[in-house]
């Protein structure tokens, strides 16, 4: 049992480490950010987790189109669902963070925050994924549903990159990594992120992502039990 579930235990240990070290270790003292810099271990990890879950979902959609195994369709849907959950959590935590840093300390107007391209891009990306579930729900034929939604999922994944990674970096954004600021690739750039923070940040990404994968596998297993008659044999 432990042999098979080691990664679930690893996820728990990494998240215990994230909370303990994330709240207690020293962080760089920066104006405006102050203590909220620790949100890197939570808010940013939600988006990293979302990206990884969407990548897994994309891979299973491609796999489905290759062999039309219904099992892969179930995998793709549920990973996308948990990815959306992480995205929504990332959005909500971002709202809280905006409130104390950009709005209060940086004195940005609400208008400039609402114009923030990364917020709009992330909203578009999440809505595209939302439409994925609407699309799935609108089919009665299982094969057609699986086939069309697999193709749509690939499209949604392709839209994810311009909307949250490329466009905000081109048009300028309040987020790190905007043109004009010298941070090229924030969070992953060696020069951009303090070494001590990286010691917590990377384990945090792995921990949160593993938790997401765990929840996704639970949903997948329930779906597989429900659709026992359709799947294989």
């Amino acid at each position: 049992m432990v042999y098979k579930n080691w990664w679930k235990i690893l996820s728990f240990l990494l998240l215990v480490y994230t909370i303990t070290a994330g709240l207690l270790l020293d962080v760089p003292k920066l104006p405006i950010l102050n203590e909220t810099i620790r949100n890197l271990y939570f808010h940013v990890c939600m988006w990293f987790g979302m990206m990884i879950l969407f990548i897994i979902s994309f891979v299973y959609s491609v796999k489905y189109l290759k062999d039309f195994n219904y099992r892969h369709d179930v995998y793709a849907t549920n990973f996308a669902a948990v990815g959306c959950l992480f995205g929504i959590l990332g959005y909500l935590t971002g709202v809280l963070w905006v409130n104390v840093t950009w709005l209060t300390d940086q004195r940005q107007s609400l208008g400039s925050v609402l114009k923030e391209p990364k917020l709009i891009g992330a909203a578009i990306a999440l809505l595209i994924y939302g439409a994925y579930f609407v699309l799935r729900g609108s089919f009665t034929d299982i094969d057609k549903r699986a086939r069309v939604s697999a193709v749509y999922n690939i499209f949604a994944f392709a839209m994810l990159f311009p909307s949250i990674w490329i466009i905000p970096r081109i048009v300028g954004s309040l987020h790190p990594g905007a043109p004009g600021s010298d941070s090229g690739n924030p969070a992953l750039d060696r020069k951009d992120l303090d070494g001590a923070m990286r010691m917590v940040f990377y384990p945090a990404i792995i921990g949160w992502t593993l938790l997401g994968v765990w929840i996704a596998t639970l949903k997948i297993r329930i779906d597989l039990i429900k659709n026992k008659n359709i799947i294989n044999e």
Partner: protein
Amino acid sequence: MNRLLLIIVGLCCSFIASAQDKIEMADVMRSNGKIYTVVAVCLTILTGLFIYVFMIDRKINKLEKEHSIK
């Protein structure tokens, strides 16, 4: 005397300046140990959530056995 006054004024100025430069962190919370309460609360929530998810996992395990999946 004048020189002494100048030094005192200078020191005061530098103190005020450094107080303004100082970036506010939750140092009080750290020094009186209340941050540990926050950590404990977060860890309790995390542990509770994990126990809950683990129990769902076990329930699904049982269901899978009943339905003889895998």
